[in-house]
């Protein structure tokens, strides 16, 4: 069984938001929900200033805080390492959202259209609403699942496929010969906030 992870090369990434949009369109997330997100930050004093884009998503931790705090067992870590929410078991207590150190979980109390209320839903939004309700729903915790359905069909997560900078590499962290393992080893990939101890499976390569 593979242990899935992702490696994001910050030298390649130029902060174009294609990963954000690919996730939105593939997972039909409603307004304000970003299973895939790009944070932008700035450091230094002019003219020695730098700006950096940091793509984030659920870190699919090997020791996830969200799982520990879930009172109903809705949060599950699959054998392949992907952390999911079984929506029918979730009671919407949001403990997991509080516990997640990476802010990767979202919940919506009401499905909302991207357009003002009162307009009839477009066929796309009707589809999006239905897809969201089937997979995630309202009043429950939702999160990135590495596009589990795509993996089952031999595909890659939507954010990986969309990335024009080829900044994202997805694969099996347990296979030393996988591209992701080689990249992490060769370029000394690091996780965000390792001191928290959750053992995230999303690695980053240094921007410079």
């Amino acid at each position, binding site marked *: 069984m593979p242990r899935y992870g992702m490696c994001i090369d910050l030298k390649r990434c130029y902060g174009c938001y294609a990963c954000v949009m690919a996730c939105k369109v593939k997972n039909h997330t409603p307004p304000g929900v970003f299973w895939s997100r790009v944070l932008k930050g*700035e450091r230094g004093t002019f003219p020695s200033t730098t700006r950096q884009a940091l793509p984030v998503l659920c870190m699919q931790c090997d020791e996830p805080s969200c799982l520990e705090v879930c009172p109903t067992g809705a949060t599950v870590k699959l054998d392949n390492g992907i952390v999911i929410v079984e929506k029918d078991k979730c009671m919407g207590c949001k403990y997991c959202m509080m516990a997640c150190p990476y802010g990767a979980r979202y919940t919506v109390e009401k499905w909302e259209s991207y357009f003002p209320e009162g307009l009839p839903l477009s066929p796309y939004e009707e589809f999006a609403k239905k897809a969201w309700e089937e997979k995630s729903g309202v009043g429950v915790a939702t999160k990135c699942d590495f596009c589990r359905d795509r993996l089952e069909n031999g595909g890659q997560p939507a954010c990986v496929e969309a990335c024009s900078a080829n900044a994202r590499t997805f694969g099996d962290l347990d296979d030393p010969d996988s591209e992701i393992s080689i990249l992490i080893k060769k370029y000394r990939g690091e996780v965000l906030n390792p001191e928290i101890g959750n053992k995230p499976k999303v690695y980053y390569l240094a921007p410079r």
Partner: protein
Amino acid sequence: MATTAQPRIEEDTWIPTCCGQCYCMCGIKVRRQNGVITEIAGNPDAPSGRGSICVKGLASPHLLYDPYRVNYPMKRTNPEKGLGVDPKWERISWDEALETIVERLEECRARDPRGAYFQATTTQASEIRFGVIGFMKGFKTPNYWVSGGGLHCGNGAHFMNGIMHVSWSIIPDFAHCNYALNFGCSKGHGAGHVAVQNATQAADARFRGGKTVTFDPFLSAQAAKAHEWVPIKVGTDGAMALGMVNSLLNEHGIYDAEYLMYKTNGPYLIRPSDGRYQRDKETDKPLVWDLVDNCPKVHSDPSVTRVQYEDQAHEVALTGTYTVDGVACRPSFELLKEHVKKYTPEYVEEVTGVPAATVSRISKEFGEAAEIGSTVTIETSEGPKKIPSRPVATHFFRGTQGHVNSGWTCLSVDMVNHMVGAADTWGGAFGLGAAVGSGYEKTGKPYQIPYACPDGLLVAKTWVYDHVPYPMRVPKAPTRLDLHDMFPTSIYNAFTITNPRWFEMLDRFKIDYKPDVMINFGSNSVMTMGNAEQVTENFLKKFNFIFSFQLFVTEFEEAVADIVLPDTCFLERYTPAVSFPSTFSHPQGEDDWGWSIRQPVVEPLYERRDFNEVMLDISKRLGILGDYYKGLNDSIGIRYGGEMDEKYKLVEDGSVEHSWEDVCDRMLKDRFGEEHGLEHVRQKGVFTWPKKKEDVYWKWFNAARVPIYFEYFIDSGEQISKLWDEFGGQDFFDIDWSRFKALADWYPCPSHCETNPDYDMFAFYWRAVMHCNSMTQQNPYLDECGQEDPYVYAVQIHKDTATEKGIADGDNVWLENPEGHRVKGWVALTDGIEPHHLAVAAVAGHWGNYMPVAKGKGTFFNDLVEMDLPHTDPLTFNQDICCRVKIYKRNGQDEQ
């Protein structure tokens, strides 16, 4: 037993086509489930994109289904026009709309058909080349422009790149370039032509270790990704580039003599009396000085030419004085070398703000990284061939060229490449898109191998417009409403048509007709040209009747349109040629050629109809179909690489009515053979064939030279100014014709000359990755994405500057120019901008009532852009888009 009905997916299919959210037009696959578009991805089969697609393309389901789309024809019932006027729309039938339009066009034709004026958007560049051109030829009007496009991003860049690279733009050969100098351009960082492919290539280059230095007033995406960000004053890139040319030639002594001798007009002998070429008396060809035979030779003499790198030839003089027919002449290279001496590092520092030591250092680094003398061997169709390797490149686009020094600045930035031989060879600056090719092997089309004119200079075989950028048109007495016929160096002019004395000018230039009917295709020129009031009052309101093909009712329709027609978006239409003309938008590099098409992934919704189909319908009603077809047949020859075969030509006598699909099918069969018509190309959305290496690195496989000395500009300037004076043009504008000269210079913008200390800030605009032109701001996915970014809807200001002015992060402000035009916004404080600059992402600040998602977001920068001659480049008539402004806090009382 009762069963629960399960929704059954009856249809789940992916359809290949091309994106249309911007002019990059990448290959995409669109997922359709039970008739609904649900997902979009890149098309791996298409060289344009190769499976990746940007944020805009991904978001396009919302464009197709946006409830604010125009779905039915509408007419204006309020006769009043202008900004802020309620048009009082009334829904009408297509029949009524087309009957009215045809009636108005017939009236126009009776008065003078030239009164019809086509205005179009760059976003739908591939559609323009059919419906617009066919109609213009059929109806017999010369009046046309791409609003905003040419003025802001093209007059200087495309003209100069056409001369130097037979292409629309330039870009590093990212695959091999080791040192790229980016003059504030977002190519390779999410925008510009071939955006996705360039981003992939630029990321690969970073990964490989390629170095980038970016000159930019603010810490843009391209500056943030660079190894070194060099803050520079807006509008001074030309001075920086000429400083580099000086530093290379006169400080470090680094230049590629072989390249200059055989691939440029650097050795052409110039006579001192008038700066013209010294020509051979017999052949009239320019002369060079053969250093072996110690005598003059015509430039094309086999003993002094090298087409391929391994050809043998005598060395020719690049410096010195040589007497020919009793005249002491000097090679043009030496004149350039002397001319640029005034661009000392110290002078450059004074103009640009870049420290003199940095100018010198970067020039040296660039020159050394060029590895002059190094070669590589590539596998061509004629076996292995040695070519120079010059892994350095400069590149630029809109920010650099949007100034009153546009033409010479574009040339100067590219000149740096030509000094070290880094042009269209391994590792150097490539033309973008890929402009040179011998075509699909079975048909020889599209054939686009450039050639040398009698003077030996590079001539494009294929171009985006009717006239190639070189040789230049001879200026003629104007017949166009923008006087364009007089100005061979410009693509479009705006200082004429937006002038309050426009009609007076038409009389003076003996143009005996007036603007009458405007046909608008997708453009929102009220927002994309410049100051909205000037554009609306001086130009748009002069038309008797305006009808518009649109996706949304934009500020343009609200202000001036009489009828709005519901156009299809790119997901609902056919287009037979998207990635061609390749000069415009085809990826460069070694990947295959790919001729992409658009096909509808859903039938047009509501009463939307495709622009090209409607233009055929209108033309049929007007009885001009034959000439319309002839216009398309003729246009395909120059734009798409070769005349149509008789077999596939559209029937020009009008006896056959061609459907739009038939037009598409014929064009494809003509290019790729009977078996590769529309039905075939639809399968993958693209027709591909291998690119030859000698087409990628074409410089040393082609006999043509490029100019570093623009001798023919002198003639052109004399011709234009003479014509101008004959008509009394100086009564309207005092144009500085001295810009028509042979050697490059930098000229200050009005923003650099402002003396009122109140206007202490330089404002400029930049391009946010999730927006293209103005339409994308209505897409709620993209809008949300824009709000995720800290700067997309803000005015960026240095935090110390803000503090000095008592402005806090998030404060609402006005930006006001010396002419009294002001725009509103809110500020984001940053350390990532030169302290005297303000950065605004364009084109934002919508105020119209029919694009509610876009409304009120960001700042309408273009309102600060003055539409007048002082803000226009006298060489290319490009518009200046940097402004001197004052910034002050806004409170509730002075909202309007």
